[in-house]
Structures are given as C-alpha cells and as structure tokens.
C-alpha cells in the first residue's frame, strides 16, 4: 500500500471537492424546501433534508476511504467484483424484496441493499480495465469482448425491472467505448445499425415503459395520468420566470402538484423557486464539476486512471442529462435522480465513492513510477 504523504494531499483536486460541496449544499437547501408541504396551517416538513445531511457525511467518509488506497490495486479487483455482482443480481429474483412490483432490493437485515448500485461500480472498473489495456482504436474483437463482459449485469437489471439503472450502466459503457474510440469501420457500421435495432428494442419494453415514451412525445394525451408529471414539471419550471418565486415559495411544489419532488423532480423545485438566474448558477456548477472530472481524466498518470475518470464523467453526465432533460420536457420520464440534488441514500454514497475514485486518480498524477 502506498503511504499517504504530503504530496498527495497537495495534489488533491480541491476544485472538484469544492464544487461537490457546493452542489451538495444546494441540494440540501433545496430538499428543505421540497420537503415542505403547505397544510391547513403553516408548512409541514418531512425530515428528508436531515437524512440527506447524514447520508452526505457517510458519503464523505466513504470518499476518503476510496481515495486513500492506490487506484491501481482496483485493476486486480475488477474481475472478482464483477463475479460478486453477478451472484448478488442472481439472488435478487429469488430472495429479493418486492417494492412497487419490482424486485430490486436485497434485505441485509439492518438495511436494504441494491445490487444494481454495486453493478455500476463493477462495470466501471471492469470496462476501464479492459479498455485501458491498449491505446489503439477499438476493433470488432475488442468491442465484443467488452460488451460480453459488461452486458450481462445490465440486462439482469433491466428485467428487474429497473430501466433507469440499466440504462445508466449501458450509457456509461457506451461512453467509455466512445472515449476509447472505435475504428472507422466499426463506427460506421454501428451508426447504420442503430435504426435497425430500435424497433427490436421497442418490443422488449414493458407496457408502462412504452407508455412513458408515448406520453413524452405527446403529454397532452393524458393530462391527469402519465402526462401529468411532464406538464406539472414544466409549469413549475416555467412559472419561476427570471428571478424565481423565492425560497420556500414555490406553489407547484408546496401544494404538491409536483410529483416526486424530493427525488426525480427536485430540480423543478429549484427552478421554480430560484428562477432562470438560479438555474444558470446551478448549470454552471454542474458544468465546472464535469470539467474538473475531465481535467482529472486528461491529467491521469496512466490509461486505467484516465478511463476510470472518464467512466465517472459519463456516469454523472448521463444522469444530469436525463434528469434535467426529463424535468424540462426534453426526455421521457425515467426514474434517474440528479446527482447531489435529489434525495437518496445509496445514490449519495455511490456518488461520493466515485468522486473518491477520481480524487484517487487525480492526486496520484505526479507520482512517478517506483521500483
């Protein structure tokens, strides 16, 4: 184990850390508002924001734990971790807990555990390891070996059904493959194949998933049913106008017109209360946040590190794209939370662990090869 020396502390990606802290703080304040509900007299608060602070502290601890050991050890952990993930995913249909008709949780006595969260990390590690072994563009063989290794957990998660997490993993994987780069022939073939695969994929979707996509295309079809979320969310965002309605003043959220306002639609609460000005600030924070991860990927000492950072980049990038895209009506409704802003225990822990991973890579960028 590499000892912690002062160089490493100095090499920490402090900007990234500050941006994460800022985003998380915005998230907690927003949750404070989102968990308020106007009742007959005054405002009632549910304690989401308190729990989120506790999750955040736990996440911070995990982040430190993850960034201390040298990330290069993880390379050898990639395969065993994937095996463990597959075993746990296989256990879910057998002994998992069923919530809202989907089996996603394993009951670990004291707490519930979602193997899909673990799968995100193991796919990230394994794909990084496999893609980092060479520097030339990816040919057919390389592509298929990566897909073969990483598609299975994604498929198992999609059938749980947990479309959001499955999609997240697939997009992360896709992002990493593009980051590595494909040979011209493979790239062109894939571009042409996409339209052919789309109708096939459509047939595998569950009826409610199809409904969501159809509703996204025309929300006015069913204004009180599945189109409700899309319409109410855009009303919330739009009615914030330039300056917003002010903290705790969003009528859409306080009067519960917004669904899932502390999780998937948290950013709608923010947009309603802080307006366009607040949104520009928040989007800038996210852009700089992504930029810092990009810098870590660029400056990484080796390819594995660079790929790890790129994987984390895509993990956050897609979540931000899909979640905000959904809130402002650019994407269909998919249950994907917004990092650091949406409430969620295990998501917060995973997010901080991934930041820890980036830090681990980033702070070792000046370390020279030993031996």
């Amino acid at each position, binding site marked *: 184990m*590499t000892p912690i020396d002062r160089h490493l502390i100095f090499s920490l990606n402090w900007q990234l850390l500050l941006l994460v802290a800022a985003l998380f703080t915005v998230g907690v304040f927003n949750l404070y508002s989102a968990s308020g*509900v*106007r*009742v*007959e007299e005054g405002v009632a608060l549910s304690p989401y924001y308190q729990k989120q602070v506790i999750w955040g502290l736990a996440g911070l601890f995990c982040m430190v734990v993850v960034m201390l050991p040298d990330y*290069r*050890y993880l*390379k*050898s952990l990639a395969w065993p971790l994937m095996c463990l993930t597959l075993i746990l995913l296989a256990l879910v249909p057998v002994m998992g807990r069923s919530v809202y008709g989907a089996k996603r949780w394993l009951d670990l006595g004291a707490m519930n555990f979602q193997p899909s969260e673990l799968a995100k990390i193991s796919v990230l590690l394994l794909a990084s390891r496999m893609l*980092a072994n060479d*520097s030339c563009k990816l040919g057919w063989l390389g592509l298929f070996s990566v897909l073969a290794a990483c598609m299975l957990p994604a498929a198992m998660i999609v059938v749980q059904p947990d479309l959001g997490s499955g999609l997240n993993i697939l997009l992360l994987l896709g992002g990493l493959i*593009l*980051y*590595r*780069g494909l040979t011209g022939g493979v790239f062109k073939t894939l571009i042409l194949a996409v339209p052919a695969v789309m109708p096939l994929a459509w047939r595998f979707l569950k009826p409610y998933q199809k409904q969501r996509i159809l509703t996204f295309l025309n929300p006015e079809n069913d204004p*009180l049913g599945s189109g409700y979320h899309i319409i*109410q969310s*855009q*009303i*919330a*965002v*739009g*009615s*914030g*106008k*330039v300056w917003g309605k002010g903290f705790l003043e969003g*009528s*859409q959220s306080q*009067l*519960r*017109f*917004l*669904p899932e306002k502390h999780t998937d639609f948290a950013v709608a609460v923010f*947009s309603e209360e802080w*307006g*366009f000005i607040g*949104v*520009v600030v928040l*989007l800038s924070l996210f*852009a700089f946040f*992504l*930029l810092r991860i*990009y810098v870590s*990927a*660029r400056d*990484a*000492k*080796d*390819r594995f*590190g*660079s790929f790890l950072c*790129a994987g984390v980049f895509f993990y956050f*990038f897609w979540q*931000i794209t899909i979640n*905000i895209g959904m809130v*402002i*009506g*650019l994407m269909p409704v998919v249950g994907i939370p917004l990092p650091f802003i949406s409430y969620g225990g295990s998501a917060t822990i995973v997010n901080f662990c991934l930041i820890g991973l980036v830090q681990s890579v980033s702070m070792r960028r000046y370390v020279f*090869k030993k*031996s």
Partner: protein
Amino acid sequence: MPAQFDRDGPPAPRGGLILLQVLILGLFCLFIARFWYLQILRGDNFAELARSNQIRETSISSPRGVIWDRNGVLLAVNEPSFALGLVREDCPDITATLNQIAEWTGLETSTLQEIYLRGKKRVKTFEPLILINDLSFETLAKIESNLVFWPGLEIIVRHKRFYPRGELLAHVLGYVAEANEEELEKDPTLALGDAVGKQGMEYTLENRLRGQKGRKQIQVDALGRELEEQVIIEPKSGNNVTLSIDLGLQEHCAQQLEGQAGAVVVLDPDTGQVLAMVSQPSYDNNLFVLGLSANKWQELRDDPMHPIQNRVSQSVYPPGSVFKLLMTTVGFATGMLKYTDSTVCGGSYKMGNHEFHCWKKGGHGHIDLRGALVNSCDVFFYQLGERLGVDRINAVATQCGLGVATGVDLPHERPGIVPSTAWKKKRYGVAWTRGETLNTAIGQGYVQLSPLQVARFVGSLVNGGRILKPLLDANDPALEQGRLPINDKDREFIVSAMVATVDAGTAHKIWRPDARIGGKTGTAQVVKLINADERKKTVDMPYKYRDHSWLASFGQKDGKSYVVVCMVEHGGHAGEAAAPVVKAVYDYLFGPVRGQAAAKPQPSGDTAAPAASD
C-alpha cells in the same frame, strides 16, 4: 506488485478528451436554451397555469324548494343523506377497501366492484366516487369510527328529497331522481348526481323548485385537499310552492278508495283549484329518489293494477251515463232539444234489425227530458243522439273541454276521445255507422274521458259556464279556458236535473238534507254487451270484466261549492262503488249530517233497486 503505470502510449485518448469537452459544452448550451425558453419566453404563460392550478372552482349546491299543502303542511322536504365515496388517488388498495366495505354493509363485493367500475369512467381520480347512497345510521356509525384506517374513503353529506306522506301524494308530487345523460346534456348547470324532477309537480315546477347553484373558489393542493375557500356567488335556494291540495281531504278520499282501483278528484268550481286528487292504488315515490333497482321498477311497471298511472289525468274511461249531461248540453247548444221533449221508453230502441236496450229492462214508460236525466233513460238519449248526429256531439264536446286535455300542471296527461266521423275515418279508415252514434249518446263505444275532464265540465255547469283550468298551485290565479256554449237558463235546467237525480234519482245515495247536492251516475261497460239479458249481477262477473263505476257530482252549502268526481274501476254499477265514496267525501267537506233521522224525500220507485241504479 500489480500497481504499475501503463507506460505504452499517452494516458488519455485524444479523441476521447475532445468528446468530453464537446459533451459538456453541448449540454450546458442546450439546457440554458431550454430553460430560457421555459422561464423567460413562456414564463408568464406558465405562471398563469401555475396560478390556475391552485384554484379550483366548484359549485355549491342549493336546496330545492319545499312543497306545502294549502294549509301549510309539508309534503316534500329536503333531508340530509349520507353517502360513502371513494377518492381513488388517495386509496392505496382499492380491492381491500371494497372488501372492507362489503363487510361493513353486508353487500356483495361483486356488486361494489360493478359500481366502482361504472363510476371510474365518469369520476376524476381526485373526486369522490359514490359507492353507496343513503347509508343507514347503523352502517354510518360503523364506517365513521373506522374511516381513519381507510384512506380514500369519505362520508359525503348530500340533500335528499323526502316525501313524508309517500303513497298518498305520489301522483300529484311525482318525484325527483338523479339526472340522466340526456338531461345533463340539455342543461349545462346540472352536474352528475344532481336531482331533477321526473314526474308530477316536481317535474312541472322544476324551474321554480330548483335553486341556483353558488360558486366557490378553493385553493387546493395536488391531492385535491382543500386549504382555503372563498364564496364568489352565494347559492340561492329554490322557491317554495303551496299546493291547492288539502291534505286532510286527500287522505280521507284515499281511505275511501282503499283496496280498490279508481280515482277521486275534488275541485273548487269557482277557482278551478284541485283540493284532492287521489289515484289508487299508489306507490311510494320515495323509492325513486335514490334510484330504483331494476327489479323493483319492473315490478311496479308490470303490476296489473298499474300503481304508477295517475288515474285522474293519465287514464281515460268511457264515461257511461255521465255523458248524458253533455248530450243535453249539445241538444241545447244546437237548439235541437227542448225541455218539453218526451218519448215512450219500452226498454229498447230499434234501429234496422238491431235493438238497443235501455238499462231498465221493462222500460221507463212515458218520460220527458228531466225524467230521462234523473232516471238515466237510455232510449231517450238514443233518439236524441240520432237527431244530433255524432259530429255535432263532437263539436260541442270539444267546446266544453271534453276529449280535450285540461292542461293541468302534470306531465303525460291524456286527452281522451269524443269521436266524430272524421276521427273514425282517420283512425280506422272506415265510415261511421249510425249504431255507433247511439253508443256514443250514452257514453259508451269510443268515448273516453279522464275523471279530471269530467270534473272540469261539472264545475263549469255550476260556476256560471266558465271552463276553468284545474289548478294545483294555490297561488295561481283562476284561468278561464272557455265558456259553455249554452245560456244560463239551459245550464240551470241541467243543474236542477242533477239535483233531482240526487233527491230522487239514480244518485240518491249521496243525498243529504243540509246541502244542495247534484250528481249523475255512470256505468262504463268494459266488455260490449250485445244483449241486455246477458247482463249479470256484478258479483257474478270476473273482476276484469266488471263495469267501471262513475259518479260526477257537485255540492253547495253555506256559500261553499265543490265538485266531486269519483270513478271506481270495475266497481260495477254507479251506486255500488262510487256513491259511498262520494258520500263520504261530502261528509268530510260539510261535516256529518246532524240528526240522521231527518226526513228524506222518497226516491222514485224506479231507482229503488240498487243493483240497477243506472
């Protein structure tokens, strides 16, 4: 030691790094553009939508006007009724909830499922879907104490129409029931579940009785929870209505007809106001208010005694000898009948090779007009009918309001028939025959009148010839619809003949010493009798072939004047069934006769036999 840096080639792929930069820039620009569009370009639009989101406008129900009788007794009132509603959005497990309701109420779960599925199509998810109407207090108590454990269930208080006297006034008041699709479509102010008048005065006076709904604005959250409310338009309750009906008299009349099928109507001849309108058998109009089950409705509709029919205005019958009052009027109106006209009744009248019988087998002997009315001689009126011809009868009858709807404020009135040659041609496509004129002359054959028409006609005979619309609203002014086409002297002649009929003729049973009472009996044959010899005694005939028994009368005492008409279906001859009813009505109106032993004029020998009093 696995911890090594890969040294072959640059650490980060160039293309990949460019890709990441492009993605960040693209995402930032796309989102900023979209937020710009939503918040700045269309911000005002969405702000307006957000405002209207929170404000829900709903109507406030207004109570329906109550109905009193002429003495201020309540006949139709509004009572609170408790319904059980289900708000789907708040209910986590609908099947379990329905099962629990089944357990509380003892209803079948499948029945509840059915109601639920039907309601689901019309009721929004955040509005209560009514599962059970009119909960009993016992069930209400059971549900109320458990309500907190069953989110989504709601007890809803609504107004329910209640008729304290039910059957007694069902035909006059009618009933209200939930508006159907057609009514909802016609009247935009009606909402699902609103009650509207469907029958009787509730139907006719709908516009007066129904109130004007108010409106209120409620600030709601997305679950429909109401936070604050503000009334914009106050609801206006409907107008109250006082009927001309005298509840005591109505009840008394109904008691007299108890167990029989028939009708009694009592009018004030000077105003046209209806004091009693009884149709027996009756039904409980309260059954309709909260929805009648299909079974019960079928049972009522298919009842051979037709309890739903209002026999006063919706049923028409051959009037029998009551029609002779009109025949005399036609004779005077056309100038073809004189007081002195007379004939010899030998018990039958020959036309061609067909004999038309008088009800009195042996005949009345020599008889003049007054005697023919008092003793109801058929032969005299056969001859009069021959002279007049059916078209004259039809023309004058129409002027007198017979065979013409009275226009009373009740739905589905039937106009009845006084035939004419043109009518028969049109209806049956064949020519009128002379024999049919003879049948018409004694109120048989095609003639069909409602008891209300007969009452209006008798009223016009005693009120100076004014044909008045029968009124049910005590505050309506008298409405003259026409005048009898005869002069006062001729009219008085008919009236005095009616008095004589009571003093010493076929209607003697209703005579009383302390009042001036006039009447005319009638027997309407249900089956055509070719030969009078076949006529059996009423008791020997099966019920449905028995004759209808009529008595049309008026009574005057101490300046008060009444018209009482009674018709008993299958009641046999006039005196048998209708006379005791009418007599009892006068006992109520004028009080019991003081000193029953008061001298009575002897009735003429002809009418002594009660079985043949027509």
